[in-house]
Structure formats: C-alpha cells, structure tokens
C-alpha cells in the first residue's frame, strides 16, 4: 500500500537514488502522512508564538515544558484520537489517553492530570441519536478505563454536542506531568555505539497504518478499518511508567521516545534525526506477539505501551535490571551509528536504508491554496424573533441542554482524586492540582467552540484563547503557556484550508497578546465523513500558575453577599447573538458572528480578578461563558443559596440575560468597595448586580430609561429546581441502568 503522491514518490527516489522497496515505501508513507509530518499545516504553525522566559522546551519534542520555579517544571500536551474513537469508541479513546501519557513520561515527567475535550453528535438526533449515545458511553468508559487504572486523575474538560460531529466525533486528550529540571529527557539517539533498547509490550499486528488512517476521510468502508485501531493495556502502561522513571534515575539512559503513531519507524528515525546520528536495528530481536510478521508489519505496527531508549554503552545491565524488576521486556535491538541512516535489518539482511534527517524532517511541505473566504453555511443576517414569552422556561431549557448541563454522569466515572493533589476537579472554571514539593499549584483549562469558529475561525480562535485565560484567572491563576489541537476537515479544499489558516492566525494573535506561547500540540485534518466536514474546531489547553491554597469555587457561599460582575454587563447586537447557546437551544438558529472581543480590555479584567482573589475578596468566582449571565448566575446557585439580581440595562431581555460577550467574571463578596477599587485601578467596569439570598434566583430589570416604572421580573425560580434540571439532564438522556 502506498499513499504517496506521485511528487512525493519522486522525492523519495531522489533521496534514495533508487526505487524504494516495499518496506521503505511503507516507512515513507507513514512518516510523510499528514498525521506525522504536518505537511499541510507546518507552514502556518510557524506563525504561532513559542517562546517566553518560562518555556524550557517548545514544539518539536514529545511535549512542551514550562518552568514553574524552585527547580521544578511541567510537561504538557493535547492530542487527538478522533478517527479511532469513531471506529471503536472504547479502545480509540483509551489508547488516546495512553498515547498522550507516554508523551509526558517519555520526557521524564510523572503524569498528574488529564483533561478531555470530547464532541459528539446530539444524543437526541432522530437518525444518529442511538449511535451517538453508544459512542459517548464507549468514549467515556475508555477514558475511565485507561486513566483510572494507570492512576492519573481525570479532572476536567468539556463535552459538546453538535450535528456536525454525527459522523466524526472528536476526542482530544490533554495530559500534564511534573518533574525537576534535572530529570528532563529527550528523544535523542546520541553517542555513536550506544545500544538501542526496546522496552515494554511486544509488537503485534495491531494498529498498522493507524497514522495514515488518521490522515484520510471516512467513507462507507471505514468500518473495515477496525483492525487499524490499537488495543490498550493501562496496567502495562503503569508498569512502563514506573520502570521508565526508575531507569532514568539510574543515569544510564541517554534518550527515550514513545513508540506512538508509526511505532518503531517514527521513534527510530526521529531519535536519530534529532541527534544527527544513524540508527541500526535488527527486527529479529524485536519482541513479537505473533509469528510470521514481515519487516513491513513490524516497522509500522502501532502496538501500544512500547518505548525506545538509548542507553550508555556498558551500562545496559542497569537498565535491564529495572525493567526486569517490573516484569517488562527490555531488549537491545540495535545501536547508534555515525552515518545518519536508519538501517533496518531482518536476521542480518538489510531490508531498509533511509537517511534519518530526510525521512523525519524533510517531509513534503504544502502551501495548500486558501485564498478565499473560509467555508460557512450560516447566514450573516439575524432572523426576526419575537420576545420570549417565558424567560424562566428558556433558562431551564438552556440548563438542561447538552452543552450546558452538568457532566456529572461522565466525570463520576473518572477517578478525580488519585495522587491526592486535586484542589479542584471537574465542574470548576479551571481544574487545579497542587505540586506537593513546591507550594505551587497548576491550573488548567481546555476549551473549544466549533460554533463560534464556524462563524469566524479567526475571531472564534481568539475567543477560545481569551476564554481559557479567563477561566484560569477566575480561579486566581496566571496563564503561562498553551497547547492546541486543531481539528479540521480536508485541507485540500481551499475553503477548509482557509478555516485552518484563519484559526491558526487567530490563535497566534491571542496567544501573543495573553503571553501564553504554544509549546506543542496536534493537528487532526480530514475530519470528514462522506464529504461532510466538521466545523472548524480548534481546542486550546492553557495552563496557569497560582500559589497553593484552598480554591475559590463557583457556588455562592453565604447570604447577603454582594454579587458583582467584573468587566461589566457587556454589549451585543443582533449579529453577535447568532452564535450563542440561546440561539442554538431556544431559537434553533445560527447566524452572524461570534461575540466581539477587545483583547486589551479582556486582559485587564483577568488582572483585576486575579488581584481580587489574591486579596481574598472573592467568596465565589465564575467566568461568564456559554449561555451568558443568566446561566452563570444559575450555576452559582447551589445548596439552597440563590440571589436577587437587578440588571440596569437597555437591552432586550434575551440579550441581557443570555448574550455571551467575553471579559466578564461573576463574583460574590462581602467587600464590594475593595473590589470596585481594584476594578478602577485596572480601568475595567464593575457592576453591582444584587445580593445573595436563600432559596430563589430572581432576576429583574431595573430600567433607567423610564424612571418610576416598576421593575419587570425576568427570572424567578427555586434554586432546587434549577439544580435538579441542570444535574440530571445528561443522565436522563442516556437512560441509565437503575441502581438496585
């Protein structure tokens, strides 16, 4: 099988100076696949900011690394497993978790947190609802299976439902690990003559061509690709983690890399290429799960839970001893050479010989045409819609909707507290883990919004970055670095390529502005089924730092507190309302543009809220996001604590309650003057909305235009009712097995 384009084949011939054999063709095909080479996106990814004082390792390694002070660092990255999760949801999602965890611990870091951004077709879709429910349940079970057994807490993420994911669900997994600066390892095959050692699970025929499958659209035949999906064993991975970290501590390990996509092929040539060396291996020595595997199959297998490492010559036994202690295979399969070539032998006979650098780093680079408007099918102009007859009902509908309802049913299946570092788990604005050794905590936010990005990829992407940074600031964390997962359709279509380019440029602008350099990530293209592309769906994962302390959480804590909106009520017009959850859920429409963002103002709001939290003034804090102010207020009501709110606004009630303008954070405080002082110092608005009170959430307008008229009640609902609707909506849609 060769998926090389004619021009690519010609390049291969030029590099080798001859025709490639079948094994070599297979090796080039996977290494030059979109998944491994980023050949359509590389040109544009260069636009992303990648540096800051804190960045120790930027893009190009298995994960980015950030300094967190006191000699400690964190490694983190997000990666997709979209295609496998559609074909086989449980294993697809499970191995997605496994792959990103290996990326983290192959650098020497111990994984301490996982977050997932998952997207499906609607659960009540008349045609695909059953299948969507099955995929959701399989994906969630797969994530739980792998992460729980491995022993890493899964502490956040997002779950979104849109029709465009009916035939192409998205599973993006973010992982983060911690280590000391002197524990960092790289995937480099340094030191001529050093042994190349294979560790971990045996190689089987599973997952062959997984990388190239992930680089193609789905067709009717895709279900036949099930054998391309890998099978995960989290227990094996746990052993591999412990053994790798222990082996690294012996000092005998020179370099190490995960065998992920494109397996042995990718790890050998990339490690050689980074070190400027050659790597020679003999496949006869590779531990194999089944007999009769061809060199082609061994080189391209994507069997899970394997690592390739290079040890210091003469100290192999120290490495072997550690792996044998953990009951794992560790075998010398070759050595580092000085000729810069990947030389693959089978029982001593050369079956492939390719220069490492050309293979790993000189993949074709395409400047795909994109000189047109990004594809969109929504109208620009807002439809007329009548005044809502029941705003209470609208709010309850939003709280019960797939995107906004509580995801408790999902995250209760994840171990959120293993490793005893979780200060804030799922359901907060940002997840927080403490670093026991330093007194520092790390906050993480993962966010995407295909709806905004389909209306404007550039503005949508900027809003995502802003939203993540706002989430972090809302828990008091300073955003410091980012990773991104770019999920798009077929880049060979110019109108799709234009989406990708605009989104990357939007991310670049915002990440520069918010000082969150991109340290790595993943591009997943060809997310199309039967010619229909998903919406452009970049997903951001941003990390922030804060001092370890009990977290400021979303719910109101006590009655009689002042409820304030830092950043002000915001503004909106009909065009900018078309991407909101209100438009989606209540009006069943989509139009116009995403909310307008002023990045300077946004950043000042972040600074202000961090200051409010640092001074201990906020009893509760919540980012105003999807669903707007009314939903944020409803989410802040818990355990019988509600609020009485009066909005001083000239906007029509739907806009005032549900617009999704950015740069707003809802807090409750007993010291409103001190909060207002901080707001003034940062030149941001701060509005007193009302006070917390027991049992009910009431929202009325306080008209300024017609003084003397009584306020109009917009929302009046018992907290218990809001809570019940919000918490049980997902479970009700999935009709769970009753507990006896």
């Amino acid at each position, binding site marked *: 099988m060769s998926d090389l384009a004619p021009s690519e084949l010609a390049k291969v011939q030029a590099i080798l100076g001859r025709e490639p054999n079948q094994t070599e063709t297979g090796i080039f095909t996977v290494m030059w696949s979109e998944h491994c080479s980023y050949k359509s996106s590389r040109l544009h990814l260069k636009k992303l900011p990648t540096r800051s004082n804190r960045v120790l390792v930027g893009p190009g390694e298995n994960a980015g690394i950030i300094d967190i002070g006191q000699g400690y660092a964190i490694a983190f990255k997000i990666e997709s497993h979209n295609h496998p999760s559609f074909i086989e949801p449980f294993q697809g999602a499970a191995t997605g978790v496994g792959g990103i965890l290996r990326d983290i611990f192959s650098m020497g870091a111990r994984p301490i947190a996982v977050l997932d951004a998952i997207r499906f077709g609607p659960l009540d879709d008349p045609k695909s609802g059953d299948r969507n429910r099955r995929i959701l349940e399989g994906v969630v079970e797969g994530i739980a299976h792998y992460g729980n*057994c491995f022993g890493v807490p899964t502490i956040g993420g997002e779950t979104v439902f849109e029709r465009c994911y009916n035939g192409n669900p998205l599973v993006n997994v973010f992982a983060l690990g911690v280590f000391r600066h002197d524990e960092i390892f790289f995937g480099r095959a340094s030191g001529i003559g050093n042994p190349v050692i294979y560790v971990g699970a045996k190689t089987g025929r599973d997952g062959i061509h997984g990388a190239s499958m992930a680089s193609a659209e789905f067709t009717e035949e895709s279900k036949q690709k099930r054998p391309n999906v890998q099978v995960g064993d989290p227990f094996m991975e746990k052993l591999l983690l412990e053994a790798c970290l222990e082996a690294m501590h012996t000092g005998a390990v020179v370099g190490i890399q995960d065998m992920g996509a494109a397996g042995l092929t990718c790890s050998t040539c990339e490690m050689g290429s980074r070190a400027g060396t050659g790597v020679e291996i003999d496949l006869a020595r590779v531990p194999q799960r089944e007999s009769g595997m061809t060199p082609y199959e061994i080189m391209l297998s994507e069997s899970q839970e394997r690592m390739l490492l290079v040890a210091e010559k003469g100290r192999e036994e120290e490495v072997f001893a550690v792996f044998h202690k*953990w009951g794992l295979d560790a075998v010398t399969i070759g050595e580092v050479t000085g000729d810069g070539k990947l030389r693959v032998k089978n029982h001593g006979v050369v079956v492939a010989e390719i220069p490492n650098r050309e293979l790993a780093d000189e993949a074709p680079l395409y400047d795909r045409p994109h000189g047109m408007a990004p594809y969109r099918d929504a109208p620009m102009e807002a439809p007329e819609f009548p005044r809502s007859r029941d705003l209470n009902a609208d709010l309850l509908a939003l709280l019960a909707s797939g995107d906004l309802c509580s995801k408790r049913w999902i995250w209760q299946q994840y171990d959120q507290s293993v490793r005893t570092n979780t200060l804030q788990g799922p359901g907060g604005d940002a997840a927080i883990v403490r670093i026991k050794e330093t007194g520092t905590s790390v906050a993480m936010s993962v966010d995407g919004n295909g709806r905004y990005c389909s209306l404007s990829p550039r503005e949508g992407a900027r809003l995502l970055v802003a939203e993540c940074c706002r989430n972090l600031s809302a828990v008091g964390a300073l955003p410091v670095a980012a990773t991104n997962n770019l999920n798009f359709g077929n880049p060979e279509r110019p109108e799709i390529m234009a989406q990708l380019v605009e989104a990357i440029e939007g991310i670049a602008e915002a990440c520069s502005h918010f000082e969150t350099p991109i340290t790595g990530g993943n591009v997943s293209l060809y997310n199309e089924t039967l010619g229909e592309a998903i919406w452009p769906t970049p997903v951001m994962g941003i990390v922030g730092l804060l001092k370890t302390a009990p977290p400021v959480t979303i719910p109101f804590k006590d009655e009689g507190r002042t409820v304030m909106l830092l950043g002000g009520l915001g503004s909106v017009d009909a065009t900018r309302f078309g991407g909101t959850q209100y438009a989606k859920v209540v009006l069943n429409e989509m139009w116009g543009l995403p909310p307008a963002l002023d990045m300077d103002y946004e950043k000042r709001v972040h600074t202000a809220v961090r200051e409010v939290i640092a001074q201990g003034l906020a009893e509760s804090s919540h980012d105003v996001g999807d669903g707007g102010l009314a939903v944020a207020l409803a989410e802040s009501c818990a355990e019988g604590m509600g609020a009485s709110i009066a909005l001083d606004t000239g906007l029509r009630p739907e806009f005032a309650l549900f617009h999704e303008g950015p740069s707003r954070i809802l807090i409750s405080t007993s010291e409103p003057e001190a909060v207002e002082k901080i707001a003034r110092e940062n030149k941001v608005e701060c509005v007193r909305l009302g006070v917390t009170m027991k049992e009910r959430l009431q929202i009325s307008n306080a008209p300024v235009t017609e003084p003397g008229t009584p306020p109009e009640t917009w929302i009046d609902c018992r907290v218990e009712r809001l809570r019940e609707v919000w918490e049980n909506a997902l479970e009700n849609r999935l009709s769970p097995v009753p507990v006896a």
Partner: protein
Amino acid sequence: MRFGVVVFPGSNCDHDAWYAVSGNLGHRAEFIWHDSTSLGNADAVILPGGFSYGDYLRCGAIAKFSPVMGAVKKFAQDGGLVLGICNGFQILVESGLLPGALLRNRNLRFVCRPVTIRLETTNTPFTCAANPGQLIKVPVAHGEGCYFADPRTLDALKAEDRVVARYLDNPNGSLRDIAGICSEGRNVMGMMPHPERASDPLLGSTDGRIILESMVRSMVAAHA
C-alpha cells in the same frame, strides 16, 4: 509509629497512603515491594488502592499469590494491624483474611465521588478514636465495590460487631450498605472508601484521618 505500604505492580494509591501517613500525620511510612517475604519492622501494614496486576482475572485474585502476602498473613495472625483500602480490601477478601466478595458496582460503572459513611463501631483499632456513630465524608473510586456475602455471614458480621462502616448513600449496591468490615480478631480491616484521600485540609476534608489516627492510638496503647 512505622507504617508499611505494600506496592504491588499496578498499585496506584501507594504514594497517597504513604503521603497521608508521613506528610499529613507525621509518622514514618515505608514502601514494601510485593516480592518481599518480610515486612521489615513495620508496626502496621496498609494494602493500598489501585489495580494490582491490572485487575486481571478478578480484582485482587493475582495479588494474593504475591510473596509479600505470606508475610502479611503471618503478621495478621500475630495480631498486627492490616488496613486494606479499595483494591487492598479486594485483596484481603481474595486472600481469605476477610469474608465475602466485592462484585462489580450494581450499575456496572466506575464511580468516583465523596460519600458519607457511618462508623458503626468504635471497638476496632481502626475506629477507636471516633465517636460512636460518627459520620465521615470520604471519596470512593472503584468499579468493583459491591460488597457481597451470604446471609449467614452478613448476620454473623453484624452479630459480632464487625461491620465497621456503612454507606448512607450506597454508591455501588453493597449488601446492607456495607462499606468496611473487620476480621474476627478485629486487627484486619478492609474498606472501599479512601481515608487517605481525605486527610489533607487542602483537599476539602480531613475526615479520613480518624482511621489512621485510631491505628496510631491503638498501637501506642499496645506498646505502652
């Protein structure tokens, strides 16, 4: 006091137990590798949570053959304190140190959330520092936590005051809401909830400390 924390391949709450004992309570804790045939000079042993041997075959079914379990049994026979948490509880029932079995949760799904349990007896070395009927809030995190035993065993457990903790809001379908039990000699206890995850004020609850503190108190008394 010196706690030994056994590490099986696949244990993943070993470090948490170690940290709760040493970091939160300020006692000594040491890891004991599963192929060790000695517990060193541990005064008490914790079998931690996790997925020993990947939960292959059945949870705890392979761990019971680990060399260290011979030493644990001997230690228990001699009256030493053994606390099995989550997977550790599963290993204790598989090893025959505690009666009954832990089946898959009734809804067939893993569950992780804080639960409230009532400490049913203070007449154990694991609850002697608690008030009678004390309610504590601790997390569960398991897929196979549904306690099962035949009615005679369940009656005997109750009659002998060996049900140490019951769920107020049963998360897994356990018979008679049982969350933890102890041995006839009262020195071996297994529980599904994780007291070590509720021992640090930063994590929202220190309710779990009462278990570890009780162990310390009873050991001090025994040494005195």
